[in-house]
């Protein structure tokens, strides 16, 4: 397939042409200006898929779990797309994307699309083009789009502002009940998974998580009248033995129904869109900053160096100058 402009890829991708979908995903990932209009069009066509985020520490079994989960969801006839994220090297910018290694069993099923993405310096557990990629797959007709984050630490929680349903995977043997009550990643779970439950210390991890959740429930304010409360279930899985996968699929589907019946889905969508807009602002700002690097920025840097201007005041000046430029139509 020779070079095809992004806008011409859109109708082909909407028709399910795999190569067109793949190419649009590449353009979403690299974030070229040429692809902007096409990705905007895919956004307009998207909005039907259930977006499921899977997150957890490195080595907690996310990829293996995602493969099993996708196969289980497929039995209902739904088409599944997976966006699997692995880290970029902070030194070379390159990456080794190995999530597919665990997903070999999904090969040959035309109802499953697996795509690996590198973080490219983005923090928070996602790659910068992740949500545009989700739009492409959503608009192309995949019913469930699973985002598998990079292996995260304690507070990389962006996925909760990217997915409708967030699954947090905890592996046995990594911490006690104090870890479980700390702020951060455990708080974003709509569904908890304790993976590798064929290991002997899994029961302890399940008990710690359930204890944490019970504590949270007793202290949480009661839900608004007429609103039900979602209680995040703890699902024990052992992917290699196919244990707990059906329960996980059921919990995810139950959460999806809860979002719809409770009206919570609107709040989630709004939160996702708000974050996307903020990220887009940051991106535009960073691009403008780099564009002005040699002229305006370096002038201001001299003043900061001489301590006649604080970094904060310099940022204000730079923004004011950009604002004037953008409104005089000279925004390159």
């Amino acid at each position, binding site marked *: 397939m020779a070079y095809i402009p992004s806008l011409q890829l859109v109708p082909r991708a909407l028709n399910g042409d*795999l190569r067109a979908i*793949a*190419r649009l995903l*590449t353009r979403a990932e690299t974030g070229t200006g040429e692809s902007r209009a096409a990705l905007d069009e895919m956004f307009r066509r998207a909005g039907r898929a259930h977006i499921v985020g899977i997150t957890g520490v490195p080595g907690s079994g996310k990829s293996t779990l995602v493969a099993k989960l996708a196969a289980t969801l497929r039995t209902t006839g739904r088409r599944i797309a997976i966006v699997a994220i692995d880290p*970029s090297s902070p030194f*070379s*910018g*390159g990456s*080794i994307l*190995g999530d597919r290694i665990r997903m070999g069993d999904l090969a040959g099923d035309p109802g499953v699309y697996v795509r690996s993405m590198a973080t490219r310096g983005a923090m928070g557990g996602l790659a910068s083009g992740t949500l545009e990629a989700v739009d492409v797959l959503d608009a192309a007709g995949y019913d469930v789009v699973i985002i598998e984050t990079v292996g995260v630490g304690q507070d990389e929680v962006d996925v909760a502002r990217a997915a409708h349903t967030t699954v947090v995977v905890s592996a046995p043997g990594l911490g006690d009940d104090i870890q479980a009550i700390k702020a951060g990643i455990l708080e974003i779970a709509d569904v908890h998974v304790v993976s590798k439950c064929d290991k002997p210390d899994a029961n302890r991890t399940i008990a710690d998580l359930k204890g944490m959740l019970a504590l949270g429930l007793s202290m949480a304010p009661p839900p608004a009248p007429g609103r039900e409360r979602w209680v995040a279930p703890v699902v024990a899985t052992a992917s290699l033995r196919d244990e707990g996968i059906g329960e996980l699929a059921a919990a995810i589907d139950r959460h999806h129904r809860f979002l719809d019946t409770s009206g919570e889905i609107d709040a989630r969508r709004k939160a996702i869109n708000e974050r996307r807009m903020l990220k887009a602002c940051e991106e535009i700002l960073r691009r403008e900053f780099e564009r002005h690097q040699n002229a305006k920025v370096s002038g201001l840097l001299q003043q900061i160096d001489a301590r006649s201007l604080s970094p904060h005041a310099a940022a204000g000046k730079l923004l004011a100058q950009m604002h004037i430029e953008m409104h005089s139509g000279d925004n390159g």
Partner: protein
Amino acid sequence: MAQESGIRVLIAKVGLDGHDRGVKIVARTLRDAGMDVIYTGLHRTPEEVVEAAVQEDVDVIGVSILSGAHMTVFPRILNSLKERGADDILVVGGGVIPDDEVRQLKTIGVKEILLQDTPPDAIVEMVRRIVAERGAR
């Protein structure tokens, strides 16, 4: 961040061949050259490799073979790419392969064959060169 190349490479092991030390070194070398490297793991079929390459929209498929099955595996990969209308994806082989079979493989469409004594820098240069020759897409 340095993202000078933007080149995507799928690295695969095909069939009953568990020798993956070389393929890991190649993956690491390309990573350190700033490329995104998708590794499929062991024991894939040629058709699975092509399916993954299409989904991942890679520039290059690199297949490491040390089992001696190269005269079976590469034709199947090339055919499968054609069937999917994806024969613009460049195919490169690596391993221990006799010289006359290297010539045959290149004749049927394998872009390059890297033999066992290829230094890492040469791998990086080769990938950059064949992607540049193919042009933008």
